[in-house]
């Protein structure tokens, strides 16, 4: 799969990865061994019948391929683009050790795009309605998946979303050059076409009271991990300092890149420093490049420890993002408006629980990077607003909702899943959680 040329792509927000042509897709699909016990499927949290859809592509039956995927995954064009396939399906493919694994993500994307571009064969609303009402809180991948699965089983689903648009991080966080917003919208529309009711501008806990929420026959809480962390360093309150969430929301959801045609502004800056090393940091840095700034990313551990997907790091470097490893911001300089970021060099000490080295500052080894915009991408945690208001929910050490294997919380008919339960994770894990909870809710109804 090819990428657009760097000097072209950093001037706009169009997609970087170009995707397969039909011929390329067939060639890639023909490499698949059609394993009897396909390991790839064990690596997919929503259990797509991967050999089946790949064999359909190899046979040129693209529409069959798309239908096969959608039996298990309602958001295939999204997942084909953003799943960390190297640790999911592709990481489990038997060809991984001999050859290169099958590019399952790109094939999934191809089939989904092929079908969408020709007009969906929208799934019919299930005719047999059970009369059960389920409230889904949050319209990110977890909420959308649970809603689709429940609607399929004939339950009446209402999704409440606090923003004006559905999609969660898919809409406000992941930039269009990785995930075009028309695609997000089209796949969400398909879920809604199954008879799911979407209510935007509803912040549950405020626009819907807790008793009103608990009056539904079942509830699925999928409010994500949207609460941005701040480093707590001096100068953070200055102008020009953003959380990655704010910076990305202004651009992705509010289209600040098109200011003043769109009303929401953002500081483009000429010299941007991003703190962090995950996907969020890479996204913020690459957006800042497209807004025309020189961008430096500061990460406190070594290059090999960067938690971002390798592909994103490579893309960021190609696009001219400078990465300084083993350094951490300790103070922001400026008089009301940020003018520089003072950093300290970090040395790597013993390993922490996750097997990564613990960074510790080297006293006196400090340096300053000029900056007129500073973006913090140091992690997000579950938004406490709703979960604090529902009494009786058991909350974990990291502010996450505690759930069992079925996604059930400490309140019988209240389920939860996605980032609110796991902490910031991935789209596909959130979808897997939505599916699991939907199945458990359905079982609960049948047993009642």
């Amino acid at each position, binding site marked *: 799969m090819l990428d657009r040329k760097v000097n072209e792509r950093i001037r706009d927000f169009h997609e970087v990865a170009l995707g397969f042509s039909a011929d390329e897709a067939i060639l890639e699909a023909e490499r698949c061994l059609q394993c009897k016990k396909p390991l790839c499927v064990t690596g997919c949290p929503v259990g797509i019948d991967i050999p089946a859809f790949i064999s359909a592509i190899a046979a040129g039956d693209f529409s069959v391929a798309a239908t096969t995927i959608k039996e298990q995954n309602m958001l295939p064009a999204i997942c084909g683009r953003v799943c960390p396939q190297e640790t999911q399906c592709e990481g489990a493919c038997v060809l991984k050790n001999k050859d290169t694994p099958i590019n399952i993500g790109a094939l999934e994307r191809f089939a989904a795009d092929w079908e969408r571009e020709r007009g969906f064969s929208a799934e019919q609303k299930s005719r047999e309605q059970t009369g059960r009402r389920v409230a889904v809180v949050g319209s990110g991948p977890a909420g959308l998946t649970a809603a689709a699965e429940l609607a399929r089983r004939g339950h009446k689903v209402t999704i409440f979303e606090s923003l004006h648009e559905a999609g969660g991080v898919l809409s406000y966080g992941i930039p269009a050059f990785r995930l075009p917003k028309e695609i997000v919208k089209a796949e969400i529309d398909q879920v809604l076409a199954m008879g799911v009711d979407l209510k935007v501008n509803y912040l549950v806990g405020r626009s819907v009271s807790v008793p009103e929420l608990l009056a539904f026959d079942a509830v699925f809480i999928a409010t994500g991990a949207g609460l941005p962390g701040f480093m707590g360093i001096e100068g953070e*309150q200055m102008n020009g300092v953003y959380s990655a969430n704010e910076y990305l929301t202004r651009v992705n959801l509010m289209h600040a890149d098109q200011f003043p045609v769109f009303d929401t502004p953002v500081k483009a800056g000429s010299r941007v420093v991003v703190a962090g090393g995950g996907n969020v940091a890479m996204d913020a840095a690459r957006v800042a490049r497209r807004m025309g700034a020189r961008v430096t990313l500061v990460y406190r551990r070594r290059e090999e420890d960067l938690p971002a997907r390798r592909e994103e790091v490579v893309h960021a470097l190609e696009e001219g993002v400078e990465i300084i490893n083993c350094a951490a911001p300790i103070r922001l300089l400026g008089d009301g408006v940020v003018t520089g970021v003072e950093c300290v060099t970090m040395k790597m000490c013993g390993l922490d629980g996750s097997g990564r080295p613990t960074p510790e500052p080297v006293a006196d080894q400090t340096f300053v990077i000029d900056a007129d915009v500073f973006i913090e991408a140091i992690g997000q945690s579950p938004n406490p607003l709703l979960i604090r208001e529902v009494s009786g929910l058991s909350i974990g050490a990291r502010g996450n909702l505690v759930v069992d294997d079925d996604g059930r919380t400490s309140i019988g008919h209240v389920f939860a899943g996605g980032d609110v339960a796991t902490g910031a994770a991935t789209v596909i894990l959130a979808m897997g959680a939505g599916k699991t909870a939907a199945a458990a809710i359905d079982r609960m109804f049948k047993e009642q």
Partner: protein
Amino acid sequence: MYKIEETTQLADRVHQIWIRAPHVAHHAQAGQFVIIRIDEQGERIPLTISGVNGDLVRVIFMAVGKTTHHLASLAAGEHVRDVAGPLGRPSEMISGGTCVVIGGGVGVASTPIIAKAAKDAGNHVIGIIGARNAGLLILEDEMRAVCDELFITTDDGSKGTHGFVSDVLKTLLAERKLDLVWVIGPAIMMKVTSGVTQPFGVKTFVSLNPIMVDGSGMCGSCRVIVGGETRFACVDGPEFDAHQVDFNSLMARQRVYTEEEKVALERHQAAHCGCEEGGNHHA
């Protein structure tokens, strides 16, 4: 889409609109706000809920920039794209005490709903509302109807006491025991006025108005420093203990986009027949 049912101009550049938004109206409490986005290109702007009637909510705002000018130009029967809310925490309340609800300028918009909540909770309620001059004073009748006592101040003396709301507050503090005070208005007015109650140790709330985006605790744009800690005004506030608030950083952060706001407003006005004050072109 949310329908605008009624619009009224209350004073120079100050407009009142009633919008049909049942999900907000049925849950709104004193001290909360909505976020409005007029159309697809629009910015999300926070406005205090200043009244509720059935399915309708009222907001009162001053036309200061692009979005508020645009909103002021809409007529009854037109629609806005989004109304999210109610957002923020309801005002903290006491009962059986003496409460003072103070509003300055367009900040008076927030006062009747708080005064009514204080009254309903069984307090003796004193209102103090102020403006630069008599023509800019809003909601006098409404406040008179709900408060046990009402004081009016104008900077130029054209109505009520000549001076500031803080002058009346000082007099009250010297004369009697006050239990809870709200001060709502421009940041500088809140800073100065709430400073008056500090030596008396009277619990005082201010309603902070930093720039917001989502209003749900997701972006951190609205962060303010209260008691030395970073708090998010949209979910932890907007009302905070006045004596803990770092007003200077709030005021600095409100100015982040001054240049961009100017560009947006000029562009808007150039496209709309050049009316200076957000006139009612559609009417």
